[in-house]
């Protein structure tokens, strides 16, 4: 069970993800609506794990990931992605992402990935 920061530019996706994470017994450290905010919230809240959307305003998910990694190299970040975004996910992983979940989210898969990344 971990304290999770959700970074996504849509309230819809954040709510969906939040409810899935709640159902798995996790707590939500906070939410951020763009990459900039995500980095700021990470520094402020020090969550155990971050779910990071890729296509976002201000700072995209990859740039935000790198900013967080620079601040905390041990940060555990799971990318939220979609079929067709393989190249972006690979880039994210090279930059230090620890996992990925695919939209549309399937609750069991999301929870499994979050659990595994938290345990790593």
């Amino acid at each position, binding site marked *: 069970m971990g304290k999770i920061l959700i970074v996504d530019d*849509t309230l819809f996706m954040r709510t969906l993800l939040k409810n899935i994470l709640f159902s798995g017994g996790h707590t939500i450290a906070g939410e951020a609506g763009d990459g900039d905010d995500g980095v700021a919230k990470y520094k402020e809240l020090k969550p155990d794990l971050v779910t990071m959307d890729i296509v976002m305003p201000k700072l*995209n998910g990859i740039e935000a990931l790198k900013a967080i990694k620079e601040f905390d190299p041990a940060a555990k970040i799971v990318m939220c992605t979609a079929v067709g975004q393989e190249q972006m996910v690979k880039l994210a992983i090279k930059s230090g992402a620890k996992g990925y979940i695919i939209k549309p989210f399937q609750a069991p898969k999301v929870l499994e990935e979050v659990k595994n990344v938290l345990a790593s």
Partner: protein
Amino acid sequence: MSEFEAYRGLFVAESRENHENLVKNLLLLELGSYQNAIDEIFRSIHTLKGASASMGFSTMEHLCHTMEDVFSLIRSGAASISPDLVDLLLTCSDLIEQMLDDIESGGDSSSKNPDREIAVLRQWIEQHGGKPKENRETVAIPADAIELKEGPQLEEREGRQEFEMRITVAQECVMKDVRAMLALGNLKALGTIISVQPTLDAIEEGNFNGILQLVIESDAGEESLKTAASGTEISDVEIRVVQEQEIPAPDIIPDTIKAVDPDKKQSSQGDKTREIKNLRVDIHQLDHIMNLVEDLVINRGRLKQIAEKHKIKEMDEAIGMVDRSVSELQNQMMIIRMIPLNHIFNRLPRVVRDVAQHDNKEVEFVIEGGETELDRSVMDGLNDPLLHLIRNAVNHGIESPDARKKAGKTQKGYIRLSAHRDRDNVIIELVDDGAGINVGKVKAKAIEKGLITQEVAETITTEEVIDLIFQPGFSTADKISDISGRGVGLDVVKKSIEALKGTIRVETTLGKGSKFELLLPPTMAIVDVMIVSVNGKRLGIPISSIVEVANFRKEATHHIGKGEAILLRNEVLQILALNDLVGASDSCEILIVVQYQKRKCCIPVDVVEGKQEVVVKPLSSFIGNTRGVSGVTILGDGYIVPVLDVNTII
């Protein structure tokens, strides 16, 4: 589906925002504003796709996905945008809007059929050399920023064991290659990878069949390595220790990683105005709360009067506290109900574009001050009149490119819609640089329609002539167009604006253009009124229309024609006795000078009781049209008092 039912409202609301952003930026594309608009469109359509997929609205997802493919190509620079494509994409976005309507009313978007549009988009994608299924994203990263966490350096190798591993990625995994990269990454943190099959380069290019074989040198032990390699969607990990003599040559060491498209760093500007609005309340709930607040305001007044009457000190204090809370509550409610004008402004560029295209005109449309806020109820009533004025501006205001050229103007017409807050009012201006209103033509038309006589036409001022365009049944357009001439004239616009307690004003210069100015109260529900009484009957007069309160010196009145007037500080003001409304009174001692636009007049009253904030309730429809009264209010002492509508009595 049912598990997502709870998200439907949120989905629709947010998707509408994205749809709006999509249309807005598609229109920007037409104006030649590129990279940022493309990024914005891509992001909106990508979000729409993801959200609809999550909700299981497959028809909508399919359409959005195809549009996303188109923009992936455009974004990567492989294709450029043509006006035809923008047209097609706008048609698609219309479809998305219809789908959202469908979804809002309980459907799943499948009642709309986007097959034709999708087919055309696919054709476009093929023509532009795209492989529609492989929409690569081009949010890129500077080359120097990418580095894989390197394992321990060579010199640290001593005392380590080598392991051979075979990792199988689960068959159902969607991105097997990415899983392989993750597993490799985890292992790298524990040791040095001597060899790997397939190579990291190959995996990155997508050449991966699900089985990863590698040799790693590490001191972490068998179990730790196994744990590091296992994870989500890893179905099997085999590991064994390699004997000294069987070390394979380190022929393939995956340590060089290329960056992709370092030039195409996504622009991070231009998103400054986009904010997350994360409070969504059903508007009916808000209306209900507003009603309760209104009741509170009325009862607060009542309590105040009781306390004054009985002179109970303790109660006075308590009411003072309640008073403050109620005022604060009322203010907060007002603020909550305010919505930025962008809510309706954002739809207008599309209207301008469509009308201009229909009329073969060229128009530059500029919006300013869309962040100005108005009460939702005012906003609701503003949409139609504004739409009408905008259509009019393009349709009747802006001339054809040829006519403009002849008149020595730029070929492209200019329309500016702006809004700003001015003390207690919100002012919306619609300015065009078109032909302006032809006063002669208006006069002729008014005579023809029987609105005025020839004699009157010769004496009235330009201002009065322009007022004629707001008369019912007036239209100067030579032919009825299907765009702005829908049988509704400017009279309806004026009525709608007045129903909002607003005013409309026109300034025009022949050949130079026109300016329509709407003056609106930011909120309708609660107004400041002056409570007066005439002939023992009480009335409310909105403070906003009062310019002065003066002594009524009867000796200064003069009879002019059928009416009476008074000379007040060198100004002759018409006296407007409210005999019809409350009966004649002989004891009027005070004059309330009211003003509407540039016209002033004065109302004689017996007593001024004071100023009060009241809630004006509209009159029920079966009372009919009551000229002069905008509604009634209940005062603290329970009296029902009519509130004067100054605009219509002057």
